[in-house]
Protein backbone atom coordinates (compact mmCIF):
# COMPACT_ATOMS: atom_id res chain seq x y z
CA UNK A 1 0.00 0.00 0.00
CA UNK A 2 2.86 2.32 0.85
CA UNK A 3 3.95 2.05 -2.75
CA UNK A 4 0.78 1.24 -4.58
CA UNK A 5 -1.26 4.31 -3.59
CA UNK A 6 1.38 6.86 -4.62
CA UNK A 7 1.93 4.93 -7.86
CA UNK A 8 -1.77 4.92 -8.65
CA UNK A 9 -2.04 8.64 -7.97
CA UNK A 10 0.99 9.33 -10.15
CA UNK A 11 -0.44 7.17 -12.94
CA UNK A 12 -3.91 8.68 -12.75
CA UNK A 13 -2.85 12.30 -12.74
CA UNK A 14 -0.32 11.70 -15.52
CA UNK A 15 -2.87 10.04 -17.81
CA UNK A 16 -5.49 12.67 -17.00
CA UNK A 17 -3.11 15.46 -17.96
CA UNK A 18 -2.44 13.79 -21.33
CA UNK A 19 -6.15 13.33 -22.00
CA UNK A 20 -6.77 16.89 -20.89
CA UNK A 21 -4.55 18.08 -23.75
CA UNK A 22 -6.82 16.33 -26.27
CA UNK A 23 -10.14 17.66 -25.04
CA UNK A 24 -11.10 21.24 -25.72
CA UNK A 25 -14.37 21.05 -23.75
CA UNK A 26 -14.70 23.55 -20.86
CA UNK A 27 -14.93 20.70 -18.34
CA UNK A 28 -11.43 19.66 -19.39
CA UNK A 29 -10.13 23.22 -19.23
CA UNK A 30 -11.68 23.67 -15.82
CA UNK A 31 -9.97 20.48 -14.67
CA UNK A 32 -6.64 21.60 -16.09
CA UNK A 33 -6.71 24.97 -14.39
CA UNK A 34 -7.85 23.47 -11.07
CA UNK A 35 -4.98 21.01 -11.07
CA UNK A 36 -2.57 23.80 -11.94
CA UNK A 37 -3.82 25.72 -8.93
CA UNK A 38 -3.34 22.68 -6.73
CA UNK A 39 0.20 22.41 -7.97
CA UNK A 40 0.84 25.98 -6.88
CA UNK A 41 -0.66 25.27 -3.47
CA UNK A 42 1.45 22.12 -3.08
CA UNK A 43 4.57 24.07 -4.04
CA UNK A 44 3.72 26.61 -1.34
CA UNK A 45 3.38 23.86 1.26
CA UNK A 46 6.64 22.35 0.14
CA UNK A 47 8.22 25.77 0.59
CA UNK A 48 7.42 25.52 4.31
CA UNK A 49 9.53 22.35 4.48
CA UNK A 50 12.22 23.90 2.32
CA UNK A 51 12.50 27.03 4.43
CA UNK A 52 12.46 24.79 7.50
CA UNK A 53 15.51 23.02 6.06
CA UNK A 54 17.26 26.33 5.46
CA UNK A 55 16.57 27.50 9.00
CA UNK A 56 17.78 24.23 10.44
CA UNK A 57 20.97 24.29 8.37
CA UNK A 58 21.90 27.81 9.37
CA UNK A 59 20.59 27.40 12.93
CA UNK A 60 22.87 24.41 13.47
CA UNK A 61 25.79 26.34 12.07
CA UNK A 62 25.20 29.18 14.51
CA UNK A 63 24.61 26.95 17.52
CA UNK A 64 27.70 24.86 16.91
CA UNK A 65 29.72 27.92 15.95
CA UNK A 66 30.86 26.18 12.73
CA UNK A 67 33.17 28.00 10.32
CA UNK A 68 31.58 31.14 8.86
CA UNK A 69 28.69 30.93 11.32
CA UNK A 70 28.21 34.74 11.56
CA UNK A 71 27.11 34.80 7.92
CA UNK A 72 24.30 32.44 8.75
CA UNK A 73 22.95 35.17 11.01
CA UNK A 74 22.88 37.46 7.97
CA UNK A 75 20.78 34.97 6.02
CA UNK A 76 18.32 34.30 8.82
CA UNK A 77 17.82 37.89 9.92
CA UNK A 78 17.49 39.25 6.41
CA UNK A 79 14.96 36.56 5.57
CA UNK A 80 12.86 37.32 8.64
CA UNK A 81 13.17 41.07 8.08
CA UNK A 82 12.12 40.84 4.43
CA UNK A 83 9.11 38.70 5.33
CA UNK A 84 7.99 41.13 8.01
CA UNK A 85 8.45 44.07 5.65
CA UNK A 86 6.32 42.33 3.05
CA UNK A 87 3.56 41.22 5.38
CA UNK A 88 3.37 44.44 7.40
CA UNK A 89 4.13 47.06 4.75
CA UNK A 90 2.35 45.55 1.76
CA UNK A 91 3.66 44.85 -1.71
CA UNK A 92 2.52 47.92 -3.68
CA UNK A 93 4.90 49.29 -6.29
CA UNK A 94 5.95 52.04 -3.88
CA UNK A 95 6.27 49.86 -0.77
CA UNK A 96 9.56 49.20 1.01
CA UNK A 97 9.23 45.55 -0.07
CA UNK A 98 9.41 46.50 -3.76
CA UNK A 99 12.10 49.11 -3.11
CA UNK A 100 14.28 46.44 -1.55
CA UNK A 101 13.56 44.16 -4.47
CA UNK A 102 14.71 46.82 -6.91
CA UNK A 103 17.73 48.05 -4.98
CA UNK A 104 19.02 44.92 -3.27
CA UNK A 105 17.83 41.82 -5.11
CA UNK A 106 18.00 43.28 -8.60
CA UNK A 107 21.62 44.54 -8.41
CA UNK A 108 22.76 41.33 -6.69
CA UNK A 109 21.11 39.26 -9.41
CA UNK A 110 22.34 41.37 -12.30
CA UNK A 111 25.89 41.37 -10.95
CA UNK A 112 25.96 37.59 -10.56
CA UNK A 113 24.64 37.43 -14.11
CA UNK A 114 27.36 39.82 -15.27
CA UNK A 115 30.08 37.53 -13.87
CA UNK A 116 29.28 35.40 -16.91
CA UNK A 117 31.28 37.73 -19.13
CA UNK A 118 34.42 37.00 -17.09
CA UNK A 119 33.77 33.30 -16.85
CA UNK A 120 33.19 33.02 -20.57
CA UNK A 121 36.60 34.53 -21.15
CA UNK A 122 38.40 32.25 -18.70
CA UNK A 123 36.53 29.12 -19.80
CA UNK A 124 37.26 29.84 -23.44
CA UNK A 125 40.93 30.51 -22.70
CA UNK A 126 41.37 27.33 -20.68
CA UNK A 127 39.46 24.88 -22.81
CA UNK A 128 39.41 26.14 -26.39
CA UNK A 129 42.49 24.26 -27.49
CA UNK A 130 42.83 22.62 -30.86
CA UNK A 131 43.35 19.18 -29.33
CA UNK A 132 41.38 17.19 -31.86
CA UNK A 133 39.42 17.72 -35.01
CA UNK A 134 36.19 18.15 -33.04
CA UNK A 135 37.73 20.68 -30.68
CA UNK A 136 39.19 22.57 -33.61
CA UNK A 137 35.81 22.81 -35.28
CA UNK A 138 34.27 24.17 -32.09
CA UNK A 139 37.06 26.69 -31.79
CA UNK A 140 36.78 27.78 -35.41
CA UNK A 141 33.00 28.21 -35.29
CA UNK A 142 33.23 30.27 -32.12
CA UNK A 143 35.94 32.45 -33.70
CA UNK A 144 34.07 33.13 -36.88
CA UNK A 145 30.85 34.00 -35.09
CA UNK A 146 32.62 36.24 -32.57
CA UNK A 147 34.42 38.16 -35.28
CA UNK A 148 31.63 38.11 -37.82
CA UNK A 149 29.02 39.72 -35.64
CA UNK A 150 31.27 42.57 -34.56
CA UNK A 151 31.66 45.83 -36.49
CA UNK A 152 35.33 45.11 -37.22
CA UNK A 153 34.50 41.78 -38.85
CA UNK A 154 33.91 43.41 -42.21
CA UNK A 155 37.43 44.83 -42.24
CA UNK A 156 38.93 41.37 -42.16
CA UNK A 157 36.70 40.19 -44.96
CA UNK A 158 33.45 41.68 -46.25
CA UNK A 159 32.10 38.14 -46.51
CA UNK A 160 32.72 37.34 -42.86
CA UNK A 161 29.43 38.62 -41.38
CA UNK A 162 27.45 36.57 -43.90
CA UNK A 163 29.57 33.49 -43.17
CA UNK A 164 28.95 33.90 -39.43
CA UNK A 165 25.24 34.08 -40.07
CA UNK A 166 25.42 30.99 -42.25
CA UNK A 167 27.04 29.04 -39.45
CA UNK A 168 24.25 30.09 -37.12
CA UNK A 169 21.52 29.25 -39.60
CA UNK A 170 22.81 26.03 -41.16
CA UNK A 171 25.16 23.78 -39.17
CA UNK A 172 24.12 25.23 -35.83
CA UNK A 173 20.44 24.80 -36.67
CA UNK A 174 21.01 21.23 -37.86
CA UNK A 175 22.78 20.18 -34.70
CA UNK A 176 20.22 21.85 -32.45
CA UNK A 177 17.38 20.10 -34.23
CA UNK A 178 19.13 16.75 -34.03
CA UNK A 179 19.72 17.23 -30.30
CA UNK A 180 16.10 18.28 -29.85
CA UNK A 181 14.76 15.09 -31.42
CA UNK A 182 16.89 13.02 -29.09
CA UNK A 183 15.87 15.11 -26.09
CA UNK A 184 12.21 14.72 -27.05
CA UNK A 185 12.31 10.92 -27.12
CA UNK A 186 14.44 10.81 -24.00
CA UNK A 187 12.06 12.95 -22.03
CA UNK A 188 8.92 11.33 -23.37
CA UNK A 189 10.32 7.92 -22.46
CA UNK A 190 11.29 9.17 -19.00
CA UNK A 191 7.86 10.67 -18.44
CA UNK A 192 6.09 7.51 -19.61
CA UNK A 193 8.29 5.34 -17.42
CA UNK A 194 7.30 7.48 -14.45
CA UNK A 195 3.60 7.36 -15.28
CA UNK A 196 3.60 3.63 -15.98
CA UNK A 197 5.54 2.93 -12.81
CA UNK A 198 8.56 1.40 -14.60
CA UNK A 199 10.91 4.01 -13.16
CA UNK A 200 10.31 4.42 -9.46
CA UNK A 201 13.51 5.65 -7.87
CA UNK A 202 11.42 8.31 -6.10
CA UNK A 203 9.85 5.42 -4.20
CA UNK A 204 13.19 3.88 -3.46
CA UNK A 205 13.96 1.54 -6.32
CA UNK A 206 12.32 -1.62 -7.47
CA UNK A 207 11.24 -3.41 -4.30
Amino acid at each position, binding site marked *: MKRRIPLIICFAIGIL*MIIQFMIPHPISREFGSTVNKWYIVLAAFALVLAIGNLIRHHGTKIRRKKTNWPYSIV*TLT*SMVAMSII*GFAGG*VDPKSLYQTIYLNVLAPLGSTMFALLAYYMASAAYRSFRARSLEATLLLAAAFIVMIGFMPFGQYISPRLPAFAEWIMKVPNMA*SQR*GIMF*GVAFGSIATALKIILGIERSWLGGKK
Partner: protein
Amino acid sequence: MNHDPWIWIGAFLTLMIFSFLYKDNPFYKFAEHLFVGVANGYYIVFYWQNALMPNLFEPLGAGNLVYLVPLLLGLMYFARFIPKIGWLVRIPIGFMIGWGAGISIPAYFQAFVLRQLQGTIITPQSFENTIDGVWAVVILIGVICTLVYFYFSKEHKGILKPVSRLGIMFIMIGFGASFGYTVMARVSLLIGRIQFLLGPWLGLID
Protein backbone atom coordinates in the same frame (compact mmCIF):
# COMPACT_ATOMS: atom_id res chain seq x y z
CA MET B 1 28.29 61.47 -6.68
CA ASN B 2 24.80 60.40 -5.88
CA HIS B 3 23.13 61.12 -2.54
CA ASP B 4 20.47 58.46 -2.78
CA PRO B 5 21.32 55.85 -0.13
CA TRP B 6 19.67 53.10 -2.21
CA ILE B 7 22.09 53.77 -5.06
CA TRP B 8 24.96 53.41 -2.60
CA ILE B 9 23.57 50.14 -1.32
CA GLY B 10 23.19 48.87 -4.88
CA ALA B 11 26.73 49.95 -5.74
CA PHE B 12 28.31 48.32 -2.68
CA LEU B 13 26.45 45.07 -3.28
CA THR B 14 27.61 45.13 -6.88
CA LEU B 15 31.23 45.55 -5.82
CA MET B 16 30.92 42.84 -3.18
CA ILE B 17 29.80 40.31 -5.79
CA PHE B 18 32.56 41.40 -8.19
CA SER B 19 35.14 40.91 -5.43
CA PHE B 20 34.54 37.16 -5.81
CA LEU B 21 36.48 37.27 -9.05
CA TYR B 22 39.65 37.84 -7.06
CA LYS B 23 38.84 35.20 -4.49
CA ASP B 24 36.27 34.22 -1.91
CA ASN B 25 36.25 36.86 0.81
CA PRO B 26 34.09 38.21 3.65
CA PHE B 27 32.40 40.78 1.39
CA TYR B 28 31.25 38.15 -1.05
CA LYS B 29 30.20 35.88 1.79
CA PHE B 30 28.11 38.69 3.19
CA ALA B 31 26.50 39.53 -0.14
CA GLU B 32 25.81 35.88 -0.90
CA HIS B 33 24.16 35.22 2.45
CA LEU B 34 22.18 38.44 2.22
CA PHE B 35 21.04 37.47 -1.27
CA VAL B 36 19.77 34.09 -0.09
CA GLY B 37 18.05 35.60 2.96
CA VAL B 38 16.34 38.50 1.23
CA ALA B 39 15.30 36.38 -1.74
CA ASN B 40 13.73 33.77 0.52
CA GLY B 41 11.92 36.48 2.49
CA TYR B 42 10.71 37.86 -0.82
CA TYR B 43 9.36 34.50 -1.96
CA ILE B 44 7.71 33.72 1.38
CA VAL B 45 5.58 36.85 0.99
CA PHE B 46 5.16 36.24 -2.73
CA TYR B 47 3.82 32.71 -2.24
CA TRP B 48 1.51 33.80 0.51
CA GLN B 49 0.07 36.61 -1.63
CA ASN B 50 0.04 34.90 -5.01
CA ALA B 51 -0.27 31.19 -4.28
CA LEU B 52 -1.93 30.44 -0.98
CA MET B 53 -4.38 33.33 -0.75
CA PRO B 54 -5.97 33.17 -4.23
CA ASN B 55 -5.62 29.43 -4.79
CA LEU B 56 -6.46 28.05 -1.37
CA PHE B 57 -7.70 30.29 1.40
CA GLU B 58 -9.97 32.52 -0.64
CA PRO B 59 -11.81 29.66 -2.39
CA LEU B 60 -11.99 27.77 0.90
CA GLY B 61 -13.32 30.85 2.62
CA ALA B 62 -15.94 31.11 -0.09
CA GLY B 63 -17.04 27.60 0.81
CA ASN B 64 -15.49 25.75 -2.15
CA LEU B 65 -14.78 22.43 -0.49
CA VAL B 66 -12.89 20.94 -3.46
CA TYR B 67 -9.95 22.93 -2.17
CA LEU B 68 -9.78 20.68 0.87
CA VAL B 69 -8.00 18.24 -1.47
CA PRO B 70 -4.88 20.36 -2.05
CA LEU B 71 -4.97 21.36 1.62
CA LEU B 72 -4.94 17.71 2.61
CA LEU B 73 -2.28 16.83 0.03
CA GLY B 74 -0.18 19.75 1.24
CA LEU B 75 -0.47 18.63 4.86
CA MET B 76 0.77 15.17 3.90
CA TYR B 77 4.22 16.68 3.35
CA PHE B 78 4.44 17.00 7.10
CA ALA B 79 3.78 13.30 7.60
CA ARG B 80 7.56 12.87 7.33
CA PHE B 81 7.83 14.07 10.90
CA ILE B 82 5.70 11.17 12.19
CA PRO B 83 7.63 7.99 11.32
CA LYS B 84 4.57 5.72 11.30
CA ILE B 85 2.81 7.57 8.53
CA GLY B 86 5.97 8.92 6.94
CA TRP B 87 5.17 7.18 3.64
CA LEU B 88 2.21 9.55 3.13
CA VAL B 89 4.67 12.13 1.85
CA ARG B 90 4.87 10.04 -1.32
CA ILE B 91 1.29 10.91 -2.17
CA PRO B 92 1.83 14.62 -2.90
CA ILE B 93 5.14 13.72 -4.55
CA GLY B 94 3.40 11.16 -6.75
CA PHE B 95 0.88 13.83 -7.64
CA MET B 96 3.55 16.37 -8.58
CA ILE B 97 5.70 13.94 -10.59
CA GLY B 98 2.67 12.53 -12.36
CA TRP B 99 1.49 16.02 -13.21
CA GLY B 100 4.90 17.07 -14.53
CA ALA B 101 5.29 13.90 -16.59
CA GLY B 102 1.74 14.08 -17.93
CA ILE B 103 1.86 17.63 -19.21
CA SER B 104 5.29 17.20 -20.75
CA ILE B 105 4.47 14.28 -23.06
CA PRO B 106 2.13 16.03 -25.51
CA ALA B 107 4.18 19.22 -25.21
CA TYR B 108 7.40 17.48 -26.31
CA PHE B 109 5.68 15.73 -29.21
CA GLN B 110 4.26 19.04 -30.35
CA ALA B 111 7.19 21.41 -29.97
CA PHE B 112 10.18 19.09 -30.25
CA VAL B 113 9.06 16.40 -32.65
CA LEU B 114 6.28 17.49 -35.00
CA ARG B 115 7.29 21.12 -35.37
CA GLN B 116 10.95 20.26 -35.89
CA LEU B 117 9.96 17.66 -38.47
CA GLN B 118 8.00 20.33 -40.31
CA GLY B 119 11.02 22.59 -40.28
CA THR B 120 13.43 19.94 -41.54
CA ILE B 121 11.48 18.21 -44.30
CA ILE B 122 12.45 19.52 -47.73
CA THR B 123 9.80 20.42 -50.27
CA PRO B 124 10.07 21.73 -53.82
CA GLN B 125 9.40 25.19 -52.36
CA SER B 126 12.72 24.96 -50.52
CA PHE B 127 14.38 25.17 -53.93
CA GLU B 128 12.68 28.37 -55.06
CA ASN B 129 16.00 29.90 -54.27
CA THR B 130 18.57 27.28 -55.27
CA ILE B 131 21.19 28.12 -52.69
CA ASP B 132 18.60 28.00 -49.88
CA GLY B 133 17.60 24.59 -51.15
CA VAL B 134 21.19 23.41 -50.92
CA TRP B 135 21.42 24.61 -47.33
CA ALA B 136 18.14 22.84 -46.54
CA VAL B 137 19.74 19.62 -47.74
CA VAL B 138 22.79 20.29 -45.58
CA ILE B 139 20.51 20.83 -42.58
CA LEU B 140 18.69 17.57 -43.29
CA ILE B 141 21.99 15.68 -43.49
CA GLY B 142 23.17 17.34 -40.29
CA VAL B 143 20.00 16.41 -38.43
CA ILE B 144 20.23 12.78 -39.55
CA CYS B 145 23.91 12.47 -38.59
CA THR B 146 23.19 13.99 -35.18
CA LEU B 147 20.35 11.52 -34.68
CA VAL B 148 22.70 8.68 -35.48
CA TYR B 149 25.16 9.93 -32.87
CA PHE B 150 22.46 9.51 -30.24
CA TYR B 151 21.63 5.97 -31.32
CA PHE B 152 22.31 3.92 -28.20
CA SER B 153 21.49 0.32 -28.90
CA LYS B 154 23.99 -0.32 -31.67
CA GLU B 155 27.72 -0.05 -31.48
CA HIS B 156 28.93 2.73 -33.77
CA LYS B 157 30.70 0.47 -36.22
CA GLY B 158 30.57 0.09 -39.99
CA ILE B 159 28.46 2.74 -41.71
CA LEU B 160 27.33 4.17 -38.37
CA LYS B 161 30.89 5.11 -37.45
CA PRO B 162 31.56 7.83 -40.04
CA VAL B 163 27.95 9.05 -39.87
CA SER B 164 27.97 9.48 -36.11
CA ARG B 165 31.40 11.11 -36.35
CA LEU B 166 29.91 13.62 -38.78
CA GLY B 167 27.07 14.07 -36.31
CA ILE B 168 29.45 14.97 -33.49
CA MET B 169 31.19 17.42 -35.84
CA PHE B 170 27.89 19.17 -36.50
CA ILE B 171 27.28 19.26 -32.76
CA MET B 172 30.70 20.80 -32.10
CA ILE B 173 30.25 23.48 -34.75
CA GLY B 174 26.86 24.25 -33.26
CA PHE B 175 28.34 24.51 -29.78
CA GLY B 176 31.10 26.80 -30.94
CA ALA B 177 28.68 29.06 -32.77
CA SER B 178 26.32 29.28 -29.79
CA PHE B 179 29.23 30.01 -27.49
CA GLY B 180 30.53 32.79 -29.72
CA TYR B 181 27.12 34.31 -30.20
CA THR B 182 26.35 34.22 -26.49
CA VAL B 183 29.59 36.03 -25.64
CA MET B 184 28.16 38.97 -27.53
CA ALA B 185 24.85 38.79 -25.72
CA ARG B 186 26.40 38.50 -22.28
CA VAL B 187 29.10 41.13 -22.37
CA SER B 188 26.24 43.64 -22.53
CA LEU B 189 25.21 42.61 -19.01
CA LEU B 190 28.63 43.46 -17.68
CA ILE B 191 28.55 46.74 -19.55
CA GLY B 192 25.22 47.43 -17.86
CA ARG B 193 26.70 46.96 -14.38
CA ILE B 194 29.73 49.09 -15.23
CA GLN B 195 27.43 51.81 -16.56
CA PHE B 196 25.51 51.69 -13.29
CA LEU B 197 28.70 52.11 -11.25
CA LEU B 198 30.15 54.86 -13.43
CA GLY B 199 26.89 56.68 -14.05
CA PRO B 200 24.22 56.80 -11.34
CA TRP B 201 26.71 56.09 -8.55
CA LEU B 202 29.97 57.89 -9.36
CA GLY B 203 28.55 60.37 -11.84
CA LEU B 204 31.61 59.98 -14.10
CA ILE B 205 29.53 59.39 -17.20
CA ASP B 206 26.04 60.63 -17.93
